[in-house]
């Protein structure tokens, strides 16, 4: 019994050491601690396997798409199209979000229906509008158990990080890292713009769900958002706050990709979102000047930094 416990401790320590080594040092601006399920430690082998799976089109029924088709590494792992396009040209309902720093997330998908990445990564594989495979089919194609596909993809996504941006350097003491306009934008972002009511912390997201009115069209919600998961009326039209890291690279914006530019996003909030019965009370008319709006956009561009993925 004692030997068994000793072996377990050794394996756990080895996993922990491997995990630390595989992740490397966090980029400037990111937390040292990233929540990783104990049953899914990040090893170098697993991250590399996940990277290969992420780019492998065999994970889709017609072999036409991989995860990377909608999460383009050149665009901060986001999609330039308003909504994702899957197998046989089928269109999804929502925009594929940027995957940077999702390892720090606490809820996944725009509606938060997945609690951990291991659960999240399997859903697009099974979604008929995305990759349209059963887990059994995916397992046969990849010659891997489904749970290993899950762990490998989750480990790889945890390795996708963005940090060391001009903003990070600025808050760590490099006062020249932001232009005067960007500094003014930061001040408005945290003050008059009330952006930090939701976009806070190292990832500029509270990981919560808010109804900004994007889904309110013609007197009703075009997408129930979080309410489809919780069934609560107050969650109608609410979506998870996305990260603003690499925002300049991840257009178009919002859960439906309906806003093409950062200027359009700022203008949307300038007008107090779109009024509806469950609009988040933090969303209100801002009364920003044109210069102030430009300053916010300039600041958002300072959130583009160094992106790294895979084994470091």
């Amino acid at each position: 019994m004692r030997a068994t416990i000793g072996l377990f401790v050794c394996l756990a320590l080895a996993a922990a050491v491997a995990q630390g080594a595989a992740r490397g040092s966090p980029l400037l601006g990111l937390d040292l601690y990233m929540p990783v399920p104990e049953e899914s430690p990040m090893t170098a082998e697993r991250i590399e396997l996940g990277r290969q799976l992420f780019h492998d089109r065999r994970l889709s029924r017609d072999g036409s798409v991989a995860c990377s088709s909608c999460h383009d590494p050149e665009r901060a792992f986001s999609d330039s199209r308003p909504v994702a396009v899957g197998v046989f040209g089928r269109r999804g309902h929502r925009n594929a979000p940027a995957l940077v720093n999702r390892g720090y997330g606490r809820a996944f998908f725009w509606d938060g229906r997945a609690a951990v990445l291991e659960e999240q990564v399997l859903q697009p594989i099974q979604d008929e509008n995305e990759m349209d495979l059963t887990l059994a089919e995916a397992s046969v194609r990849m010659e891997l158990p489904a749970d290993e596909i899950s762990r490998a993809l989750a480990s790889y996504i945890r390795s996708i990080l963005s940090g060391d941006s001009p903003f990070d350097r600025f808050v760590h003491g490099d006062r020249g890292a932001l232009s005067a306009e960007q500094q003014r934008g930061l001040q408005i972002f945290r003050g008059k713009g009330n952006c930090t009511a939701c976009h806070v912390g190292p990832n500029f997201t509270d990981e919560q769900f808010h109804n900004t009115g994007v889904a309110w069209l013609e007197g009703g919600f075009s997408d129930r958002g979080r309410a489809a998961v919780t069934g609560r009326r107050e969650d109608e039209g609410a979506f998870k706050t996305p990260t603003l890291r690499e925002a300049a690279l991840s257009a178009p914006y919002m859960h439906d990709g309906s806003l093409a530019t950062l200027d359009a996003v700022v203008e949307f909030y300038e007008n107090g979102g779109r009024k509806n019965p469950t609009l988040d009370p933090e969303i209100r008319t801002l009364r920003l000047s044109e210069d102030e709006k430009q300053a916010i956009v300039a600041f958002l561009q300072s959130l583009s930094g160094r992106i790294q993925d895979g084994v470091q």
Partner: protein
Amino acid sequence: MTHDEPTPRSEETRLDSWKAIAAHLKRDVRTVRRWETFEGLPVHRHLHHSQSTVYAYTTEIDAWSVTRQPRHEDVPALRRPIRALAFAAVLTLSLLSTADTPFSAQAGAAQQGDGRSAMTTRRVWSPAPDSLSDVPSTDGRSLIYGDKETGHLVVRNLATGENRHFTNKGPSGIATGAADYPLISPDGQQAVYAFWGGRYDLRLVPLSAATSGAPPRILLSNDDVGFAEPEDWSPDGKQILAALDRKDKTTQLALISVADGSVRVLKTLDWRWPTGGRFSPDGRYVAYGIQLTRDSPNEDIFVMATDGSREATLVAHPAVDEVLGWSPDGKRILFASDRTGNPGAWSIEVVEGRPHGVPELIKSDIGNIAPLVGSTRDGALYYLAQTGTQDIYIASLDPAEGNVTVPPAPMNPRSLGGGKLDATWSPDGQYLAYRSRSSSAGPLRIRSMMTNEERDLSPNFRLNPLTRRGRLKWSPDGRFLLAPGTDDKNRRGLAQIDAHSGAVISIVVQEQGQGEPMHGVWSADGKAIFYVLSDPSAVVGSGIRVRDLETGRDREVYRPALASSISWDSHLALSPDGRRLAFVSNRQTEMAGNPANEQTLLVIPATGGDPRELLKVHKRIVDEWNGLASIEWTRDGNHVLYSWNRELWKISVMGGEAQRLGLASTAARLTSVSVHPDGQRIAFAAGDPTKQEVWVMENFWPAAAASR
């Protein structure tokens, strides 16, 4: 409404009445009820609308029995009865004596059930000064603290009682800023502390500076960090564990290099503030506590590897659980928990940063204590024990003369202490809302004066623990309470709280770089609020504004004269007809060469206009508790009431001499005066919750855990 109920465990038997609890303990009901009141017998309550029911678990009862100390069965009560001297013109408010400590007033010695050496508690320093900062630290030989009066750091030799003041000494010996949250390094050679000098930074100073005058070294100074609180030194003395308050209002748990001040953020904690961060003796882990959600007082405890590789939940329970420290061998963590209804000291085994086994009760009923950082390294627990208290009293007034006719009586003599403050009558006079300092009692309580029923509200809004940023104010229709505090995103300001549901709507929020809204009062029609806006440094009140609640627009109604400010202590009071505002203006001056305040009681039209001076007094700045305070109008609007020098006074709005109301305290400040709508009763808070002592608890660890 019910309190959170502990999750029943399968091996436990639940006792569902006083009778069952008494039978289990083989005592009568009266005895066990007394034990519950005075000795922390762990009894839970379901609070219903009109009454409560009790229950208990046999395992908790048995654990309490084992650790129970013989207490003062001969001492009548923790709280002494108020002596209402009906014949006396001036009353003496008898308050909790300093002998009534959370532990035995005698140096306590408890024989532990397994024959191990006895646990002891002894008083180390009594009374500790009012100016002692909230979080001193000790290495077992010295105690270091920030002096709130002078801003200096003070090192006290625990053996000799000698105090040495150092840091921040300018040419005149007056502090150029304020030092607080000091921690002694493991080698006892230096201290790290937070320093406020217009902005916060972290500094290091050698303890020899008291004699050598060596200057401090700035360790962390960052424009993006609004406040940094050092939590603990790493055992090797190379890192500081600190909580950082970022400019976006989020908080972070970070490691700061003592060598170069570089920061490594362990974890960002959204808008919640961590408590009791402590390094394990081997430096591999830190333990900390944190609220699970902003709308619950409950806290759990977590252990995180200092390399950031993992984190585990150590203590998860529907209770307030706070880290007290690690055992010297690093195998156990001592924590405070109110899971039995009263705060107790518990410990739990830790293996490789994870919990092992179930928590064990070390000591029940430890009271409201604040552990001194660093104190458990040698196996002892030093802590601050609050011995003072504050309660709410009700007296009767002669509405014609404004004199006290029936002496004050405590509102609820059976209620437990913990410091109640800021009582206010509802517009119909049927309810009294008040706040309690005690987290377990709920932050806001409403009492029916007809039935004496009480119900708690737990708004998702952290009420300021003091009244210096304002008081509770009922809306004219009695539906809401206006309160100062901090919202769920760490923004200070004023919010309206639904008096039935506790739902919160922020009304005025402090914006980045702007002053803090405080001291809100409703307009007579409830369509606007008047409030004081501090200057951006949040040091003084810089103006009075009125906010239209329909348009959200502000208008300034008063700006203090140059070099003057609006007093935080006095509050803002609107006359019953809603046409005049009373408040106190401060101006810095000198008294016999010492810094002092000139305080002026002013009345202005609520629409704005020139102030009329009713009264002018002087006080020494350090005489914090005795300035003009608690401004309130009589119901006829002819007089303004105020407290001054521990006594209640009134003055006519037409001017003239101030008159005593015949209500004074020999030992405590009178504050939070509220006049009943019938004009015949008055509620107020009295007492001194700042009284405190330093105690040490020893010999409580199992023998193995006590060794390093």
